[in-house]
């Protein structure tokens, strides 16, 4: 199980924090600080796994991290996860972010933290890996965005919804959950 996902920058400023196991607020901050302390000390040419802490869940706990330019992506997992598997999952997550934000950077994570959380929710749900296929994740997120935009949008909404539906069935996104095809609720436009 994934216990926590932490993203912070080179200075230790948290950019996204997601705990799948309950910790009190101050404990969370301590975990972030110590994790940063552990991770930031390490060179780029050493391995991406860290053990031997006892912050989360005692000894059955590993840190698996990747460092991209200004950001550290750290997954805290227990022994039931495969190290290399998680390492690639981080890669999938980052690639997905890249796709959703078109060249993602730290700023996207800061100003669209809610959106990043939503993307993460499609990858990891309740500490369990839900989806590892990037296209699938992107499709889910885009679909949600479209629906939501159309809900909040103006008169063009129905047309957008329709185009969303069309997009959904495009052949080049295979096995694309046909989630959109029937049940898109054509929104009652919000009155303003």
């Amino acid at each position, binding site marked *: 199980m994934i216990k926590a996902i932490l993203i912070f*920058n080179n200075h230790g400023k948290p950019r996204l924090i997601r705990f799948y196991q309950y910790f009190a*607020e101050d404990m969370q901050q301590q975990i972030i600080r110590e994790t940063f302390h552990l991770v930031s000390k390490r060179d780029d040419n050493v*391995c991406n796994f860290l053990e031997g802490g006892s912050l989360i869940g005692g000894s059955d706990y590993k840190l698996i991290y990747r460092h991209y330019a200004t950001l550290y992506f750290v997954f805290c997992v227990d022994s039931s996860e495969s*190290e290399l598997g998680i390492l*690639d999952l981080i890669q999938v997550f980052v690639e997905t972010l890249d796709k959703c934000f078109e060249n993602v950077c730290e*700023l996207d994570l800061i100003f669209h933290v809610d959106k990043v*959380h939503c993307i993460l929710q499609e990858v990891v749900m309740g500490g369990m890996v839900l989806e590892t*296929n990037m296209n699938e994740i992107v499709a889910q997120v885009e679909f949600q965005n479209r629906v939501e935009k159309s809900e909040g949008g103006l008169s063009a909404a129905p047309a957008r919804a329709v185009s969303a539906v069309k997009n959904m069935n495009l052949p080049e996104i295979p096995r694309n959950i046909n989630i959109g095809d029937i049940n898109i609720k054509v929104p009652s436009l919000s009155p303003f």
Partner: protein
Amino acid sequence: MSDVVEKTLIALPSLLSLDSQLGAGKLSSTSKLGNLIRSITELTSKHEEEKLIKKELTALKEQVSSPNTTSRQMKEIMVRAIYCEMLGYEASFSYIHAIKLAQQGNGLEKRVGYLAVCLFLNESHDLLLLLVNTVLKDLQSTNLIDVCMALTVVSQIFPKDMIPAVLPLVEDKLTHSKEIIRRKAVLALYKFYLIAPNQVQHIHDKFRKALCDKDPGVMTASLHIYFQMIKENPDGFRELTASLVAILKQVVGGKLPVEFNYHSVPAPWLQIKLLRMLALLGKEDQSTSEMMFEVLDESLRRAELNHNITYAILFECVKTIYTIHPKSELLEKAAKCIGRFVLSPKINLKYLGLKALTYVVQQDPNLALQHQMTIIECLDHPDPIIKRETLELLYRITNGQNVSVIVQKMLDFLQQSKHGHTTIVLVGKVAELAEKYPFTHIAVVSVPIRLCTYAPDNGWFIQTMNTVFSLGGDDMQPEVPNNFLRLLAEGFDSAEEDRQLRLYAVDSYLSLLQTDTCHLPQRFLQVMSWVLGEFSFLKADLEPGLVLSRLASLLDQDLVTTETKSWVLAAMCKLCGGVVGEGVAGQVAAQFGGSLNTTLRQQAQELHVLSLDQALRSRVLPPHTSWDGLEVDSSLSFLDGFVSDALAQGAAPYKPPHQRQEELSQEKVLNLEPYGLALPVSLSTCSLMDRQSPTGFSLSSGLSGNSAELPHKGGSLKMDGVKRVWGKEGYLPQKEAAEEAPAMPSPPVPLTYRVAAARTRRWTPWPAPRPLGPDQEKQQLASSLFVGLGPQNQLCLLGKPDVAPQRFRRKTRPQDPEGGSDWLSVSSHSSHSTMDSLLDSSPTPLGEELNTTALLGEELNTAGFLREEPNAISPLGEGLNTADPMGEDPNTTRSLRETANGTTHLGEGLNAAGPLGEEPNPVSPQGKEPNTASPMGEEPNTASSQGPEDTLAFWSRAEGETEAPEASTMATDQPPTQADRLTPPPCATAELLEPHGSELLSLASDGSVDLSARKLYKGAALELQLYIRNTSSDQLQHVSLQLRSAELQVLDSPNQSFPLLGDHGAVTSRHSVVMETPLVQAIVGGAVTYHTQSGSANELGFSLRLTLADFLRPLPLSTEDYGKLWLSFNHDVKQNLQLLLDKEDPLSATLNILKEKLQFHLVEIIGTEGILACQLLPGHPCLLHCHAHSGTLTVWLRSPVPDLPDCLLYHCQRVLQER
């Protein structure tokens, strides 16, 4: 792709150097979040940040409470609140609004609301209840996104109690037409399974359906559930193996749609999961393993090394192959794979390779040999994680020959790394190794074999442990010093070695104390002072005052903690003899006489007294005693006499604090509680009385203050966490590995190695600091590290036999304590408290002195006192042993003992008559049997092992008579016959006994009358059968018997008289006794008066001790009735007892013992909890509720009778300890 990302990220400046133009493009400059972030980045100090966020939060608070805030604004506020929370500032005012937003918002707003709820709240937060309705509504929504969001939130946080409300809805989603919904529903159910497994038990077939779902995504999700269930119970899911193998086969074979590929590897995460499950299933199960051989082979074959993720699969494959039943072909391939990892230039793979090696090295030490050069390189790797992993690997291949090199490497690492947790773990390992091979031979290898055997290098052990203690500091696991001291104290097989080891320790500590001690950890100082106190007598030429003064100098240091000072004082107590001792003791007493710490003050005082009185000292602290016979009486039963004296003089009986509290409050207020419900069984009216009775007189010392707390504290003594390191065969966990190693077939190793190996052997334990080429050095290191693993082993056998494992086996102790830590408590024989310190029940510091923890201290007190009372029974002492003293299953022991009882009381009865009686006459069985046989009356079969058939026939009749309710007299004029012949062999009647009576207890006898008794546990009362036997050859007249008891109630006439008792005749008198007022134990007294033929009147007094347990009977209740009764009872006690951890199912084993010994009725066991019920005759119910957790059993007793729970608890403790 990652390159692209990295490039883009690198291209972007970090936030601090943020160009405002760039920022402006990406975000609306008007956004409030933008403003907040921008101002935060401009700050320079944490303090300023705090101020700014506080301001922000105040603003947010204002906005959320304003009625005009639209939900769109609310969404924006929530994002800001999330940001603040992420930085560690609480925004609790927004929680309720997050819930509201999730409820009222549309689309994006709702999503942010849910997200905020997930991030802000935890599963036990009260506000979550408000979310349940929203979730219910959304689960029923036709909008798929709403359903998805609801499922997501359910799987993240959901109150356990509310699961039933949403469960049917979530279950429905399993058949939803959209796979994403089904997938999320499966994960939500998985979450339910994790937090409340009972509630989803009924939908297991739906899980099965999910596993067979046509969409691979849903199937993958369902594997989470199965993985968990297999982990918990592999046997229950073996039939899944075929399906899982089939799935894996299809995945590996590329049957999945191409979009499942990741870097052209088909569904790698799915493969990993499946392989892990297969490993769990195939472990230790050959037939299951055989099913997966093929697919594993295929997986290995198909894995083309083009990407990291392939290695992930390979790694799992290797692990699985080594976990399941071995197949040589596969093992070979797996070994090759490990090679690919280990030799890979990629550091992550190397790390995993080392991990894999560590995992398999116990099965296949040759692998370590093959990669020895790589391992050596890794030892010097710049990455500490790799280094640590390598040490872990070396730790697993340690044997008697390479231990010193490996330990040295570990210590080197310890000296460099300052990381807390790693240090603690590694220090523990070094200590383990050092203790496992305390006498290494490498240093003395040049000495001829014979000498070498008798000159072990005990210095190495002590030195290593010294380094461990200095490096480990005070954070190390407490068992390290405990084990070390225990090892020193108990010694090894040879007394000479023990002596040398101890002597070396004393020497090295003395010289250490001479240097500056302020940098030494407290633990180390404690160890030193104990060793010096205990063993400095071994050093013959030691000036007596020297040790004392060294120790005393410790007392002056400010950095030394009180605890350590306690240890020091305890050590000084042992050494304080002689003139010098008096002087130092006097100084110390003066120094601490005014100390604010009462413990130290008392200890110093004791030291002073002991130093003056040599005789007292040798009695209190007898020198050079062994630890083996030490027993601990945790119930302080030896004080019973003192307590009863005090009670007799009018002292108030002890009441536990909670009872006092209750009584206090009862005096003040009206009793509004119901007086209890009618019981399903006939309980007398007394069950409802006594509520207010202020003094249910009673309570022997067994319940007095300390003893009520002590036993469990002592017993639980952190033994759960302590690894069992030593066993009879020596060191337990590693034994196998160590033994296996030499037996392995060895691969050919280049000749150079052998040479190198042979060469190094002559050198010091670690590579000599000779100028060598780097390669040479490595090879040399390799040979010293891997010695004993491969062919070198033969070489070394020529050189010197590796006898260490056999020779240095630890002495087998008669009582081997369970873990490491309890050793200290045993050691307390050296710390004694004087009797009065106990009697005035002041804290007894001497006891505390030796401990590392306060809890141990109380334990020590008891131990200390015990020395004063060598005869006291020692339930705790026994309780501490894992091994039953008899080495038998307790149940067997018990039944055996009963058997023995049965047989002996028959035997006793007969024997008692025998020696005193006349020549055995042939008698009619009727004449002689009633008195001897009636105790055994209920077991007609007993006779089968004994006498003639007519005896048997008679015995069955005797049974009938025993049942007769009235006291019966059976005068006989014949003496018992052939007592000796009738005495059965002790074990012959094993199965025949029934548990309803006690053995025959001899009460009293004089020249002409012998009185014995037997307890019969009848349903309504305890029946005492008193046997009066005339052992003289004269007739006795006017025999009468009076029974009286101040504490117990004799139901039927307490007096019986018999006009005539013929020579060697016997009469039986029966009395029913009940215990109206609960007492731990009570005494029934009485006297027999009789007139001899010569006319003189005689009286023979007797007394019989009965315990509460004699009056306990099961109380058959249903769980429901139990629940009702529980609420209506108002006297309760709660305490932790020890669980019988050595049993397979500790809870039920413990409860069964209680049930058996104390006549409980086991109502039900639910998970880790159990409920039992019993009644105290005449009809006082008592309910017991137990909860087992982390090695202890929390017991909660309730009864309507004030003292019953206390008394019963006492007996529960005793039963568990005496087991």
